[in-house]
């Protein structure tokens, strides 16, 4: 009996082949998302048992058309493959292909075979074969390719597909010998490749060839070896020509193989695609449908999330007061009930909206509809210096700018991508929503106009429009002013329409929501705790204030309750955070804000949603009635100079405008820095958007008051 063993298996394939579906089915919830060292591309890993003796750790590599990379995602794939001789790199690779596009999928397969890594070919969507009139000679194909080939339909016959893939992996792992498929070197220029091989016998010719042409190197290479290779590269003239020859030769070989093994009878094909495309990409209906879908998404986000959000808000308010009454009084009690619980509540409250939005985006991507939107919108978006692919980040931006900016990676033109990154934070993200919601509820009357339209809803809608319009205007300005050289290469695959898989969508939503909670959530929680500390501590005057007030009030007729409130607000004023708020008061006064709002603004520069949490913390410090919601507390706040409510119409609108424009999200700035590889662009965003916010809020407040 041999002992239990774990092998590494990498899944690789073109986009839209069902690679991630297979990964999800193999590993289930048994997955974790990490990062590839040095880059922000997600690394998805999960484990599964192959047999009694064999366990496998699966890696889901980013989708790629070939190993000649044109984007960061594809570079990762090449890097992983070039490092395949080292430990913890794939023992077996499963190339996932789609039966309808087998020819194109086999290009990638042939490249991997030539790296001499044991490879399984899993051809997915076999259930489509009949409808498309396709027949495959599996036995002959296996012989021609020199690999195990599995025909599966992962959506329909999941169990069977998985069992066969696992069996093929075990067989392939047992017969480790992996033969190259194409021996390209002999077909192009044998003399050239002979010379190449002499430079470094450590690597195979094909590996050296990839290093040479793709400028990507394995970790094991020494500096000297790299220099030798680069010197050789500078001495060779025909590299481009050879690359063309390589691709052409690969397709010749693939065509030869497919001619014998793969038959399409077009007369048997019935095409749903054409019929659906007629509607979805129609010059009028196409756009109407797209905007109808957008409207449906936004409508659902608000309708479905308002109940759970209220529930979360109330639950955390009562949890806070429960803990306060149960734990012994003291610093720990205050930290938990006034710092940590409201802080966690401030993160949890976003989950309903973010997950609903991710749900819709996942469905649109899974069905293949998103590519049609890209097709429809490309020409329009190009007028603004962006690409059709910018539509997805801009829509995702309404949930959170962080995943949205990461979604710009597949925009291949650098200028188009940069503009998309820079303007995405203008779209109304869900962190702005609680700020908008609470201010609108405070300053806009809840009434209907023209009989049906809710005024509050209308204002909220116009804030969304404001965000999009500003994003577009900013894009136009950037398009005209940015002097960035870039060539754009635009190719979008138009996949078949598919019925989405519930499991895929579920896992996709869970994963993205988790990324948000643990990414942005950490910052929000940390800031909540810091704020609580700053609000409940202060210099010497803070400690004296209670005594002074009690002494001063001794002669007055005053209830204990009023006294307590007086003490609390005086204490807050003298605390560290009160001092900070007061010191910026002169700057923000022209916008209509006082020092309490100033505190919230300061903390919002870490993340916008902290605004509500901060005000909650500010107003709950020392407050007797912990079950009162934040809204009730804010509504009762009075402007001492005018005697009016603090949150009146001019202040409210000024705040709304400020939050619509200002770049107040540290997490987003960090992501922009990572994605643009420089501090220049996040700083331009921070100061540009900040200045715009200040000027517009100033104008609005002065006009209204």
């Amino acid at each position, binding site marked *: 009996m041999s002992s239990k063993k774990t092998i590494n298996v990498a899944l690789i394939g073109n986009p839209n082949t069902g690679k991630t579906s297979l990964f999800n089915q193999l590993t289930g919830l048994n997955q974790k998302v990490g990062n590839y060292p040095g880059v922000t591309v997600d690394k998805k890993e999960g484990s599964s048992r192959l047999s009694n003796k064999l366990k496998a750790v699966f890696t889901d590599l980013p989708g790629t058309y070939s190993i000649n990379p044109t984007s960061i995602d594809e570079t990762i794939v090449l890097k992983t493959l070039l490092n395949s001789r080292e430990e913890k790199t794939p023992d077996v690779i499963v190339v996932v292909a789609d039966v309808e596009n087998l020819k194109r999928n086999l290009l990638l397969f042939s490249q991997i075979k030539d790296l001499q890594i044991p490879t399984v070919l899993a051809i997915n969507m076999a259930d489509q074969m009949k409808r498309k009139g396709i027949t495959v000679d599996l036995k002959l194909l296996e012989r021609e390719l020199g690999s195990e080939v599995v025909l599966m339909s992962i959506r329909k016959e999941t169990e069977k597909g998985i069992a066969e893939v696992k069996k093929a992996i075990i067989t392939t792992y047992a017969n480790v010998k992996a033969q190259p498929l194409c021996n390209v070197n002999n077909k192009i220029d044998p003399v050239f490749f002979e010379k190449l091989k002499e430079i470094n016998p450590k690597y195979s010719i094909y590996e050296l060839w990839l290093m040479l042409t793709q400028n990507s190197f394995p970790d094991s290479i020494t500096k000297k070896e790299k220099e030798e290779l680069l010197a050789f590269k500078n001495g060779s003239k025909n590299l481009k020509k050879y690359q063309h020859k390589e691709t*052409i030769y690969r397709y010749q070989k693939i065509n030869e193989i497919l001619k014998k093994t793969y038959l399409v009878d077009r007369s048997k094909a019935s095409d749903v695609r054409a019929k659906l495309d007629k509607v979805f990409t129609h010059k009028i209906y196409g756009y109407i449908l797209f905007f109808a879908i957008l409207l449906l998404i936004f409508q659902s986000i608000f309708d479905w999330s308002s109940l759970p959000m209220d529930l979360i808000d109330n639950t955390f308010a009562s949890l806070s007061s429960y803990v306060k009454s149960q734990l012994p009084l003291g610093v720990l009690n205050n930290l938990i009930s006034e710092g940590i619980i409201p802080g966690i509540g401030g993160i949890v409250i976003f989950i309903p909206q973010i997950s609903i939005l991710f749900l819709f985006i996942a469905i649109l991507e899974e069905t293949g509809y998103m590519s049609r939107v890209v097709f429809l919108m490309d*020409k329009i978006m190009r007028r603004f210096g962006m690409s059709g692919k910018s539509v997805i980040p801009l829509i995702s931006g309404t949930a959170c700018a962080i995943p949205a900016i990461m979604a710009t990676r597949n925009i291949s033109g650098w200028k188009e991508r940069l503009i998309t990154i820079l303007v995405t934070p203008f779209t109304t993200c869900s962190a702005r929503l609680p700020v908008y919601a609470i201010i609108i509820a405070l300053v806009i009357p809840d009434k209907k106009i023209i009989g049906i339209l809710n005024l509050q809803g209308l204002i909220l809608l116009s804030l969304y429009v404001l965000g999009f319009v500003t994003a577009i205007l900013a894009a136009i300005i950037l398009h005209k002013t940015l002097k960035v050289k870039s060539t754009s290469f635009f190719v979008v695959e*138009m996949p078949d329409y598919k019925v989405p898989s519930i499991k895929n969508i579920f896992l996709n939503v869970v994963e993205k929501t988790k990324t948000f909670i643990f990414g942005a959530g950490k910052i929000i929680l940390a800031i909540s705790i810091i704020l609580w500390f700053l609000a409940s501590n202060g210099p010497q005057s803070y400690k004296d204030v209670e005594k002074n007030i009690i002494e001063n009030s001794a002669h007055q007729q005053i209830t204990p309750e009023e006294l307590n409130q007086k003490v609390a607000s005086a204490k807050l004023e003298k605390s560290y955070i009160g001092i900070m708020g007061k010191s910026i008061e002169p700057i923000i006064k022209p916008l209509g804000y006082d020092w309490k709002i100033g505190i919230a603004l300061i903390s919002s520069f870490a993340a916008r949603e902290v605004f509500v949490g901060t005000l909650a913390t500010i107003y709950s410090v020392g407050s007797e009635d912990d079950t009162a919601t934040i809204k009730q507390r804010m509504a009762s706040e009075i402007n001492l100079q005018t005697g009016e409510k603090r949150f009146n119409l001019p202040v409210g609108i000024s705040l709304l405008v400020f939050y619509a424009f200002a770049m107040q999200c540290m997490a987003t700035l960090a992501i922009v820095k990572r994605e643009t590889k420089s501090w220049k662009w996040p700083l331009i965003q921070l100061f540009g958007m900040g200045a715009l916010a200040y000027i517009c809020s100033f104008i609005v407040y002065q006009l209204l008051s």
Partner: protein
Amino acid sequence: MGCLPGAEVELIQIAPLKDPLYICVNGSHLAIRKETAAKIEIIKAK
């Protein structure tokens, strides 16, 4: 992506604003911009 000498290119649809083009090459359905499409040399089939 399979757009190589000798391949059959079928123009399926032109986007409403005359760009991009929706084509089928070697069984792959792709959308490409006109500037990219201009680089494809075609001879008329049939």
